[in-house]
């Protein structure tokens, strides 16, 4: 059962154009957008980083993780723990530590989960994420079900994340770096081997590659990058709670990657923006008579997800390719 992919090893000119336009738009946006929308776009960029990190597993290596949010949330908690009550932490130290913590958790959990495959991998990643979720949910000293507040956002050398613009551009830089890092990775010998594992793990092993090591490295790296996104999320919202690690968060990330088209990183990037936009639109739907359309956003979101899976399992990017090229 091979997953339909939109492997655009080299991105078509149309996608490149969209990306360049999108990037210029993002660079210029704070000069024209209102405060509310700047925060919304920051949020979208953070989710894009999260979705791209999942694409490394889901699209490139072929491992469907239903527990990726655990590493996202963990980094947020690291920031919350390291933030003093009355002043901001330094993001120059907390950011790398948070990313390392998420990467380390992914390494330990990955040691167990990458031995499994298929259905087992899906369920086991989910179960481990739940384990972490309950660890934080049940323990008061870890914040419990209410979570933790970050009273003052991190700052360093005058770059204060309390300033919405600084946070915006820091997130944009992280988005940019993550995108180019992962695009380079696809073409590296490491990325080619991951691609081989996705297409045929036994054959890749027969060629002498230790697939366990490769998968574990990918899992760790994806966890660390999810941590980067989680750190930024916590820095933006000012609080963390167990829901960040929850099952819905993980499933949303999968949906973002699918919506854009997986396996080429650009799809995940576009899909995350698309997903968040849809979410925003559905929640803003008007009230018609007695019936509040916006209140029932889950119905529209659920229907959209079902529709995408039935009609366009290859996502938006999949539509760019002519039919006869499809697998």
């Amino acid at each position, binding site marked *: 059962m091979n997953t339909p992919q939109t492997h655009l090893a080299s991105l078509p000119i149309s996608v490149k154009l969209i990306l360049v336009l999108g990037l210029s738009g993002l660079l210029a946006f704070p000069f024209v957008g209102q405060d509310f929308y700047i925060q919304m776009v920051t949020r979208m960029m953070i989710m894009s980083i999260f979705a791209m990190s999942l694409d490394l597993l889901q699209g490139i290596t072929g491992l469907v993780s239903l527990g990726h949010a655990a590493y996202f949330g963990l980094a947020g908690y690291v920031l919350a723990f390291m933030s003093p009550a009355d002043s901001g932490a330094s993001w120059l130290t907390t950011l790398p530590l948070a990313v390392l913590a998420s990467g380390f958790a992914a390494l330990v959990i990955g040691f167990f989960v990458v031995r499994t495959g298929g259905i087992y991998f899906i*369920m086991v990643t*989910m*179960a481990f994420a739940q*384990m972490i979720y309950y660890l934080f*949910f*049940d323990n008061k000293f870890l914040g419990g079900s209410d979570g933790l507040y970050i009273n003052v956002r991190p700052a360093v050398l005058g770059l204060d994340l309390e300033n919405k613009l600084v946070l915006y551009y820091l997130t944009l830089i992280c988005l940019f770096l993550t995108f180019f890092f992962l695009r380079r990775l696809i073409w590296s010998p490491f990325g080619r081997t991951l691609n081989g594992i996705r297409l045929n793990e036994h054959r890749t092993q027969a060629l002498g590659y230790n697939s366990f090591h490769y998968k574990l490295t990918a899992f760790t790296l994806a966890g660390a990058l999810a941590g980067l996104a989680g750190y930024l999320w916590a820095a933006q919202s000012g609080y963390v709670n167990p829901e960040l690690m929850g099952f819905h968060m993980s499933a949303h990330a*999968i949906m973002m990657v699918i919506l854009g088209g997986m396996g080429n990183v650009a799809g995940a990037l576009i899909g995350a923006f698309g997903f968040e936009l849809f979410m925003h639109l559905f929640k803003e739907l008007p009230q018609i008579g007695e019936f509040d359309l916006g209140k029932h956003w889950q*119905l529209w979101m659920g229907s959209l*997800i079902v529709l995408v899976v039935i009609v366009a399992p290859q996502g938006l990017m999949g539509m760019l390719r002519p039919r006869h090229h499809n697998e």
Partner: protein
Amino acid sequence: MDLANFLIQLLNSVQYGLLLFLLAAGLTLIFGIMGVVNLAHGSFYMIGAYLAYAFTGVWNSLLWALVVGTLISIVLGWVLEKLLFRHFYQRPHLDQVLLTFGLIYIFEEMRSMIWGDDVHSVAAPEALNWSITLTDTLSYPAYRLFMLAICAMLALGLWLLISKTKLGMKIRAGAFNIDMAQALGINIVRLHTLVFAMGVALAALGGMLVAPLSSVYPYMGSQVLIMCFVVVVIGGIGSVRGALTAALLVGLVDTFGKVLLPQFASMLVYMLMALVLLFKPEGLFKQ
């Protein structure tokens, strides 16, 4: 922990384990035979509980609610399989995950439209609304014993169905090797519909039985769903015997964990799963 208390917890853990088995049995069969990851299985449990709430409100009788609710859930499973799930058996697991995740949203929102977002309680039947006094301070509600008995009977019935009847033989054949089963003339399409409807009905029945104990609330399916996944992973995909063993094991660990190690109780089950995976990566009873 004295003896009376220990016995109460033991009964609770068996009762919880058997409830998990009702849910996990359908899930593991749907996995094993159709190869479908069904995240919406917890929603069927939730739907069952809400049906029990709705029907006891109408007829004031849990028994009638159980009968009518089970029939409705069989029909629901039948229709869903024919219209939707059937087309996803050959699709990648990722598509199945997304489809069923989308369904969770749809089911939850429909629940919210029909019954609202409040927590509701369901009255236990009058005849069972009493307790057995154990010591001066300890007693055990009769409804729990009733539920234990029903779950045990259902588990026994399911075991008899799977291991002693011709239909059960077909189901086992389907779980073991689907192509071979088909080559031997088993109508696999009908078998799929049947197994799916049965799984939905068992999950809904679990929800209906639990309603008087735990009350009925939004998203009640999610937590149970994840527990069922753990049970299926520990037991081995497609193995009903494994699901029973694992469900009882999980029931024990979870119930006694909550008493002895309340801080880490919810984690213990997942640790158990990690241990099993470490030594038996395909579950305890992989066929």
